[in-house]
């Protein structure tokens, strides 16, 4: 087997050196009746060529985003990532290194995490950021738990504009941890009165902007009300590129900012792995989940970096830890950092501007389609339209024509008649005039 360096002679010699007769002597502690003495009912080893063919055949059954006009978003976005990024993250020293617990020989990882933290803090306009979370949704759940720790309260208020799957993650965890969650109804029109839900019992209010429907939300009044009640504002985003163009939550009074970083540096990957961004105010550092990288000096006085504040973590505090997390999304964070180090604020702003311009163009073009109504007022790259038919059927019909048009709200929130015709449409820098023309033309046909 190509991955196993021992030859049969090696094995025999080593068993002799160990002083046992057979390999099974080393497995003697496994209860006899539970031992597998035969091979499992699974295929035998395969050559690389065979594996490649088998997996390629599966891959060929899927339709890649790059191969069609593509407008699917709702939490994950198709952006163009420079080839340099994927090349660099495949460097052996990044790809096959462990968590940097031994900082003397992992300064490479530690330094990029420090760069990552600085980038995220600046993007969100917050004091500090951690070294990444699994993704935006789990980060949001961790933010709620953190708010509970900070406020010593147990009630979270979730906006109806929060991504429905993020909401499900928070609710699931809260439910089993016996916390209270007040989830507002789906809010495609951006009319919910979330201020009314915030009271003195409230630990935190969770608001996404741009929200699931694409609407940009003014966070300032919500922050004001939350702070008035002693609650924290958790601001969520799923499209980090928006921060290149719109006012960041940190400048609007958010206490915790959490979001999905996939758009920068990372591919779609059918939903994972992604990279959660998590930032907060300095005063809450010690309540923060996840890894943190900090600056220090070595025995020769040289600047260096270490994982720090580990007293919050499970490997020191065990059942008193701030969370059970013991990995971050290291390599995805590296991809994020490299891509953003190439973009810089200038490039990010340009990229965001194109995304927005393409959204504006598509919105304008959709005005020509009879029966289509755009529900979203202020938006970045994504907006919701109301179709004259059920959105899921329209999307399937368009897919059959080779166009991936967006996400029907009913895919995530089924069974609600008022949402059945809604379609969330995303735009990025990869969309061309031809893509939009194709979508509009096909939509007219499907709706005719």
């Amino acid at each position, binding site marked *: 087997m190509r991955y*196993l360096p021992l030859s049969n002679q090696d094995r025999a010699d080593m068993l002799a*050196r*160990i002083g046992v007769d057979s*390999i099974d002597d080393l497995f*003697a502690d*496994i209860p006899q*009746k539970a*031992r597998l003495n035969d091979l*499992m009912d*699974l*295929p035998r080893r*395969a050559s690389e060529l065979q594996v*490649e063919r088998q*997996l*390629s055949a*599966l*891959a060929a059954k899927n339709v890649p985003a790059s191969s069609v006009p593509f407008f699917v978003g709702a939490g994950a976005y198709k952006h163009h990532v420079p080839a340099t990024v994927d090349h*660099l993250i495949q460097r052996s*020293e990044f*790809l*096959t*290194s462990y968590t940097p617990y031994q900082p003397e*020989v992992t*300064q*490479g990882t530690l330094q990029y995490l420090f760069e990552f933290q600085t980038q995220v803090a600046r993007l969100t306009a917050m004091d500090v950021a951690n070294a990444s979370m*699994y993704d935006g949704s789990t980060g949001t759940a961790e933010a709620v738990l953190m708010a509970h720790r900070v406020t010593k309260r147990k009630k979270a208020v979730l906006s109806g504009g929060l991504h429905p799957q993020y909401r*499900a*993650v928070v609710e*699931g965890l809260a439910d*089993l941890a016996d916390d209270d969650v007040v989830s507002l109804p789906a809010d495609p029109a951006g009319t919910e009165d979330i201020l009314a839900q915030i009271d003195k019992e409230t630990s935190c209010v969770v608001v996404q902007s741009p929200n699931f429907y694409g609407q*940009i939300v003014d966070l300032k009044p919500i922050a004001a009300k939350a702070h008035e009640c002693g609650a924290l504002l958790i601001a969520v985003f799923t499209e980090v590129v928006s921060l290149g163009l*719109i*006012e960041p939550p940190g400048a609007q009074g958010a206490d915790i900012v959490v979001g999905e970083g996939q758009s920068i540096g990372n*591919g779609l*990957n*059918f939903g*994972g*792995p992604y990279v959660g961004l998590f930032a907060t105010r300095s005063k809450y550092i010690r309540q923060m989940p996840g890894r943190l990288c900090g*600056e220090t*000096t*070595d025995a020769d006085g040289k600047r260096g970096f*270490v994982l720090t*504040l580990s007293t919050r973590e*499970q*490997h020191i505090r*065990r059942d008193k830890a701030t969370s*059970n*997390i*013991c990995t971050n999304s290291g*390599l995805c964070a590296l991809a994020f950092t490299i891509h953003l180090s*190439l*973009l*810089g604020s200038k490039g990010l702003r340009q*990229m965001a501007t194109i995304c*927005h*311009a393409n*959204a504006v163009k598509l919105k304008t073009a959709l005005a020509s389609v009879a029966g289509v109504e755009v529900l979203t007022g202020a938006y970045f790259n994504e907006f919701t339209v109301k179709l004259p038919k059920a959105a899921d059927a329209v999307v*399937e019909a368009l*897919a059959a024509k080779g166009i*991936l048009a967006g996400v029907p709200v009913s895919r995530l929130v089924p069974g609600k008649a008022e949402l059945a015709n809604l379609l969330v449409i995303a735009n990025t820098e990869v969309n061309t005039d031809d893509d939009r023309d194709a979508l509009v033309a096909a939509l007219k046909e499907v709706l005719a």
Partner: protein
Amino acid sequence: MEEPLIFEFGHFDTTGVDFDMPDAFEMELGGHERKAALELPGLAEPEAMRHYVRLSRNNYAIDAGLYPLGSCTMKHNPRLNEKMARLPGFGDIHPLQPLSTVKGAVELIDTLAHWLMTMTGTTAVAMSPKAGAHGEQCGMMAIKAAHKAAGRDPKIVLVPESAHGTNPATAALLGYKVVSIDAKDEDGTVDLEALKRKIAEHEGDIAAIMLTNPNTCGLFEREIIEIADAIHKANAYFYCDGANYNAIVGKARPGDLGVDAMHINLHKTFSTPHGGGGPGSGPVVLSERLAPFAPLPFIRKGEDGPVLVETPEALEAGEQPFGRMTAFHGQMGMYVRALSYMLSHGSDGLRQASEDAVLNANYVRVGLQDLMSLPFGERPCMHEVLFDDTFLKDTGVTTLDFAKAMIDEGYHPMTMYFPLVVHGAMLIEPTESESRASLDLFVATLRDLVMSARNGETDRFSGAPYFSPRRRLDETSAARKPVLKWEAPAPAEAAE
């Protein structure tokens, strides 16, 4: 040359990405344009390339050397897996594009699930957890949901002292009280009688036991079936931490041992890269009793192939998911890599890999046991071998010093001070990826270090490492006054 931070050498008014800018247009941001400063350097590609290549050189990596981290399982990461994960049909598909356009992706997840269930002898698998600890959380949430569904509300989770810290942390996260169970002195495994007493003491209030097997001392719990029986009799569940499952793939099925739930670290057992700390992936296999509670999304066998169930509205009778662990469907990129690894090995190769891992660990054990101290005697270990610091007694060298001195010899330190059940633990896991020649060199190096410690050459240890990109770092001051991001230096005082 020292490598500065990007903020210290990059231009803040340039970009290393070219865009075709649109004509002027009217923005529709509703007055939410960014006003807050955003100062991020934009490097030209050659600058970025050189910066990150140089940074990478300060890292140790399995591709460059043996990585003897017990319990962390640093094995070879085949590049075929990387290539497969980057096929556009896997890497460039959106989690919410129409299911009719991702049939191959769903089929891949289903195939991987089939392998995991078959290997472990279980009934269901929750695929979506994003890492091992997330899988633990998922498994314990399923257990909590199962108790709830049965109208029970037990408050206690039993955890042995040798457990990974994530175990008690996870239990506490879900509101459980953690009760420690004793280890047998002679080998650190669970004391069955003590366990039974603990169960009796908390009758009716025990939700689960969380156990690692093989345990973190590298030993297989011989009474595992009896432990499982005792737990099941108490109406509790057996959560197995699968961090060490790589020792027994193809040799025993956790389901046959009585395990109700076990997460599988795809990076440890199935070779997905560690990536400097992630991303991981932690699918949780579930026994028949827990299967109904698997979280959304899950795959149901349909007449026309596998069906992805994403919402509560789509449930059928008997399906009682406790909720959802994450947005979307989990770590697809890791699934592809893991399946590529499994298909490559096949049933025979996976078994061989476990055998080689155990063989290599024992080879290291016998190579060192005369000089280093085995806390539980010269019995065979599984895939990792645990030493304690008895052999360093009176040398003035600590476990930490000893481990740091390995760096100067070209090795990453082994896992230190874990598990907690022995003093000054040193846990070595060579994995099946090492050749005999590699192990021989490693053993010789450690023997040399031991002799050096015995001979009183304390300088070699106390100041180590000397030859690494950095020497020992001041972690105390880092934590006392945390500097977590770069700040522009204050402008120099104006003269006068």
